[in-house]
Each structure stands twice: as C-alpha cells, then as structure tokens.
C-alpha cells in the first residue's frame, strides 16, 4: 500500500454537531486509484466522514489533506473544484428539475467546457438508456433505483478523478443494487479513485481494495477487503449478516 501516493489523508479528526461528537480522532487514507470502503452500523459516523472530506462539516481537531493540500475548513465548492464528485446519501436529485437538467448540474464545475460536455452527455445516455428515455421527465417522478442511476450519472459528468459515494444501495431492490455496483466496478476499471460508504458490506467488500469499519465514531478494524471479508470474527461483530 505504501507505494501508492495517498489522495486523501484524514488525520485524527474530531467532528462535532453542536454538543454531540460524531467522530473521535478518526484517521483514514485513500490511495490513488484505490477503492476504499467505510463500513459500520447506523450512526457510526460514516456519513460524517464523507461530509468532512467534502467540506460540508468542519473538523474541530485534526487535518484532512487532498493530494497533499489541506482542505479541512475549505468550502465544498473549492473541494469539488479539485476534481472531486459526490454521490450524496439518499441520492438527492433535484426533484423539480428534469433528468437532463440534473445531469447538466453534475457538470456545473465544467460549465465552460461546452464542447466536451455534449459528447459526455451522449456517453451517459448510451450507458444509461433509461435516463435518455426520461430526460425530459422531472427527476422527482422516477423510482428510487432510477434516481440512484441519475445520481451516479450526474457525478460521472463531473469527470472526477475521485468520487465520494454515500450508501448507494440504500433502499434499493437487489436488481438495482447489482446495477449500481456494475457501474462502480466500471468506474474502478477506469481508474477513478473511490471513497465508498456502505452498510451493505458484502457488495462493498467485493468492490473495495481496503476497508475501515467504524463504531461509535472510531475506526474499530481496518484492513484489505479480502482480509475483512474472510475474517469470521469481523463478520460477526461488525458486519452483521453480511
């Protein structure tokens, strides 16, 4: 692992929501081209970890660096501006905008690259024929699975080198979960670095190179995905039935 230059380094951060502390000295690294998964039960601090990287919450202690530069305390748009895309928890598509407009907004940081955009949009429509069919429809009228596809496509239009994804399988039928992971495997093959938060440990560990398991805002276990997936102790204690 050490030979891979780290893209994200989270070093001993504390995060508070008012009086509530959500993360306690959490550290984590994501190497270039790596897929790193953050696992853990409900309220263990997974989303907070990803929000810290995206600048949506500010650590009260510790540092976060992205490609060697400090980003803790920076605004989300500055961080996104450095080649990062986000697939938020619960998809968060814009319900009263068309599918087409949602996709365009994914490319907001590249709005001056009009030429490339048209081509990329075509590629998205090729990869997701459903979205092409429904491009004029309001995003809020689509099913959860379709919205998740839209959220993924929207993030891809950022043409990111690094994607933060929060629970992409949440609330989806197994068929859609498979589709989501098919897309993510494709991204991995393209060499996109991925920080993936999941409760669905089985799917995540198949995709990930390494994983961290959180409990009560701390890293309880970490290791390669293979080690974690095969360790019966870990599976029982942290990964539930997975």
């Amino acid at each position: 692992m050490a030979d891979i230059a780290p893209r994200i380094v989270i070093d001993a951060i504390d995060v508070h929501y008012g009086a509530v502390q959500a993360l306690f000295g959490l550290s984590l690294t994501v190497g270039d081209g790596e897929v790193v998964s953050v696992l853990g039960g409900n309220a263990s601090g997974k989303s907070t970890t990803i929000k810290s990287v995206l600048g949506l919450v500010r650590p009260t202690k510790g540092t976060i660096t992205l490609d060697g530069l400090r980003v803790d305390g920076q605004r989300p748009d500055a961080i996104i501006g450095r080649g990062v895309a986000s697939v938020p928890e619960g998809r968060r598509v814009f319900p009263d905008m068309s599918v087409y407009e949602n996709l365009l907004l994914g490319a907001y940081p590249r709005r001056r690259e009009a030429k490339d955009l048209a081509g990329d949009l075509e590629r998205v429509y090729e990869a997701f024929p459903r979205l092409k069919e429904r491009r004029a429809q309001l995003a809020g009228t689509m099913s959860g699975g379709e919205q998740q596809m839209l959220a993924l496509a929207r993030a891809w239009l950022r043409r990111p080198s690094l994607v933060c994804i929060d629970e992409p399988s949440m609330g989806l039928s197994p068929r859609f979960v498979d589709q989501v992971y098919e897309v993510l495997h494709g991204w991995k093959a393209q060499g996109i670095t991925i920080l993936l938060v999941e409760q669905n440990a089985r799917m995540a560990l198949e995709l990930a190179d390494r994983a961290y398991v959180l409990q009560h805002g701390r890293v309880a276990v970490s290791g390669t995905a293979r080690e974690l997936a095969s360790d019966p102790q870990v599976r029982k204690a942290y990964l539930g039935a997975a």
Partner: protein
Amino acid sequence: MELFLSQILNGLAIGQVYALIALGFSLVFGVANIINFAQGALFMLGAFIAYSAIAWFELPLVAAAAVSVVIVAILGLLLERIALRPLIGAPYIAPFLSTLAISTIIDQSAEIIWSPESQPFPAALSNTTFFIGNAYITLTDLVIFAFGAAATVALTLFISFTWTGRALRATAQDSAAAAQLGIRTEAMRQIAFGLAGALGALSGILVALYFQSVFPQMGIPFGLKGFAAALLGGLASIPGAVVGGLLLGIGETLASAYVGDSYRDAIAFTLLLLMLLVKPNGLLGSKRLDALGGAGAAAGAMPTTSLLASSSSQQTAIRAVYLPAWGFLVVGIAFATVPLVLTSTYVLQALIYGFIFALLAVSTSLVSGSVGILSIGHAAFFGVGAYAVGILARPYGLSADATLLVAIALTALVAVVAAIPLLRLTGHTAALGTLAIGQIGFLVFLNWVSVTRGPMGILNIPHPVLEILGGARFATTAQKYWLVLGFVVIGLVIAERYVSSPIGRVWRAIREDRLAAQASGLPVKRYILLAFAISGALAGLAGGLFAYVQQVVSPESFTVETSILVLTMAVLGGLGNFTGAAVSGFALAILPEFLRGFAEWRMIIYGLLLLAALRVRPQGLLGAR
C-alpha cells in the same frame, strides 16, 4: 361591461407590477428560505432613486430607471451581507427581524432625505388612450404591463436556461446537494438578493409611473401586496408569483372601482387574510411549505414551529430573569411614590407613556413570544382600545370604568377574530398575516370617517372619572399618573399570572412544537385564541389609557411604526419574558424624551438597537422565556 373590461385591463397593468414585487419575495424565499421584509424598502428606494435622478440630475426616465435598478440591486447584495450573513446559525426568527429592522432604518432615512411628504413623480408617460372594443386602456398602463411582462420573461429565461439560473434553482430545491455539486450556495444567496433588489427597484419605478407619486411610506403597503401575490401563487414558484400578482391587481382594481378607492388597500389585505385562512399553500399549492412541516405548522425556514430554536445547537442558552406576579405590584408601589417627590409634569408625562408602552409591549410579547406568532400588527389592537374610549367618553358621558371595560372587551374580541386566519400559520408567514391585520386596522381608523372622524381624529376626550372610586375625577397629571400606573400594574400582574400558570406552559409548548402539542391532544386553536383574547384585552386597556392621557385619538398613533416599535420592545426584553418586555417598553418609550431634537432619528435608533440585539443577544436583554 365596458367599465368592467377596462378595470380588468387596468388591473392587469398594476398586477404585473405586483408580480414583480412577488418575484422578489419568491426568489429570496426559494434560495435563502427567508421572507425578506425589506423587499418593500428596496421597492421604495427604487422609486426614490429614479425620482432623484430625474428631479436632481435631470436624467431621462430610462437612464434614471437603469441607474436606480443597478443601485438597488447592489443594496440588495449589501442587505444580504450586512443583515443576514452574520445571522447564519442564529434563531430562525432572527433573519426576519433583521430585515424588519433594516426596513425601518431605510424607511426612516428616506423620510429624512426626501421628506415624509408624498411628491409628484417627475416623469410621465403619455396619456393616450386605446380602445379595444369599448374597453379602454391608457398608454401608461400598456407600457407598465409590457415592461413588467418583459422583465418577468427575461427573469424566467435567465432562471431556466443559464448556468447561474440552474444553479439558483438547484440551491432553492436542495442547498446541501447543490453544494456537493460544486455550486457556491452563498453566492447564489447573494445573487437572489441582488435580483430581488433589481426587481424591487423596477417595480417601484413602475408604481411611481402608475400612481404618479412617490412617498417614503410606500414600501410597506406595496411590499405587503407583493407578498400577498407571492403567497397567492405558493411563495416559491415563479409562475405562481405572476398569476398571484395579476389576480391581486385585477381584484383590487375591481374592488376600488365598485366599492371605493379608499378601500383599495384594505380589500387587498383582506384578500391576503382570506387566502391565509382558506388556502395557505397558495393557489398553485407549493409542496415546499409542506416539506417544512406544512404551511399549517411551519412556514418559513423552520423545521420546528419555534421562533427561538436555531439550526446550530452551539447557541448558549441564556437563563431568563423575570419577576413573579407580585413583583410587579412591588415595583408599582415604588413608582406610586414618584409624584410625591417629583412634581415636574414633563417627567410624570414621560413616565405615564412609559407605563402604557410597558403594558403594550407585554401584550405583544404574549402572542409573539409565549405563543410564537410574531405580531407586527399590535398597533391595530392598541388603536381599537383608544378609539373605543375616544368614541364613548364624550357623547355618552360614560365613566372610565365603563369605557375602559368596553375598550378591553371590544379589543379582545377584535383580536380573537383577527387571530382566526393566523391559526394555521407560524413563523414568517404568520408575522406577515399580523402585518396585514395592523394595516387593515390603520386603514379602518383612517377611512371609516363616520365613526372615527378619519384623519382629523377625535378631540377633547374628557378627563376620566371612576365610578368605583365614588366618582373620583383624574384631571391633573399626577392623578392620571396614578390612574395609569394602577391599571397597568393590574394588567401586568394578570398577564404574569397567566404566563406562569399551566396555561402559559401550554402556550410555550405550542410555540416549541405545534404538531406535537396537537398530537398530544391539546386544543391548540382554543389556546391560541385565548392568548389573543388576553393580549387584545391588555392592548385595549393600554389604548384606552392612552386616549385618556392624550385626550386626542388619531390614526397616526397606530401606524405600522408603532407596531414595529412594540415588537422591538418585546424582542429586546426577551420574547415571552414579560419583565423584560415591560422594562424595555418602559425604557424605549421614555428614551425619545431624552433625545428631543432627534425626533426623526427615533425609528432609526430603534432599528439599529434591534439589529445590534439580534447580533449580540438574540435572546433579549433578560432572556427569552
């Protein structure tokens, strides 16, 4: 029939202007989730800057309009920067009060710069009249309609097809998600305020052309109408704002043609209240208000119905400091000795006004603080009490026992009726509902000449006589001092007993979480009406005493300025904290006595005080309760 059609055409023109004001509200509400009370002030500034550019610098109309639009757009940006940005994470009601304070400061500054009088607008469009069949429309109306419509179309295109427009809409729909796509949501907020300023200025200029006059007080009534139009259309929707504006314009023009022009505004505000009563989500029904807990529960940016809650849990709570009911009695007795040592009529007179406003501030604090329905209309209740005494005291020769009793009962009744349209509202929307009530009250005092004698007012109100004290007459200043002090202390003791009783606890529960209160089976509506009845009774008593002290009752005592003043008193004291309200009501009422010569700066000072308090101590001096 021709008249009818002509009125409709005429209404479309002014309605298009209302639509522009409404769009200003909608944009800001959509993107920043607050109702910008200062929209009316931006509108007024737009008209006056154009006025000055023409009258002082002799610019042609179009150039003057362009200058004004640019300046006011910049002022819109500044408004966001100065009055709102520092309040992120403050209690949910703080931004609204902050724009209210700014609006007060701007309005009063305009009176100082341009004089309080109405002035003819120095540019006019031609008065050529066109006929469509037998219906007619003037060129002015046509131009106004065309400009308004063009601005609306331009805005719609901008919002629909540009990157910035898309980003604005995305921010409005889901600000956190927009931020994760790399959109600078703070910048979007600023742009929304800048656009609102530009729209406000443009609509101000069009209104100046339409009515051919400008006056510094024009902001509030037109702002309120724009808000009514926005609400009619569902508050966050652009087509809704346009439809709402046109409907309001037509409705109001028809009403003024068939009922009388002096009722034009009263009818517009009544429509607003009816709207709030029947369909608070607007005609085009925005689900957005529902998402915030339902228009019935939390309209405005508030996930809870509480005025004082905030999105940041880092707020340090301030312990409220307040007197028990008997404490007011003790303080009252202490004050009763003052005339024994001080004979200056001037000082006693100032103290009398201090007492009356202490009572009025407590009355305001009751609905605004304890129940959480911010009242910007309390001057109407105050006025009802004053007029009741003014009307009954002389011709019927009634004693003060009788007149004050009528004042109290009548005002309580009026307050209860006024509260009915507010029952399903909270937050910013409820506040604007109370503003409409206050405006209607003022317009009735001004226009119901056969009863109130209109602008002349009621003069020569006799000295009060109390039958229960064996016909004692209160003629000297010292005697009136004791009379007022006595009644005010009784009022305060009763109010404090209510708010400290289980009833007060229910009020606060309703304020904190109306849905939960409802779910636990509390008769929420009855408790709110009770609060309004008591608050109305206290305001009526204050008004009655005020009439006896002034010996004159006239509409200008009951303007929106008075309402804003008493609300400021209630906020400064700590909402729901009656000791705080009484102290700050008393202090702020006697303060101008020490600022003689600065009379016109009074409202500016109050506005600055409110602004400062929101930044430094949003919980009020003695702590909200």
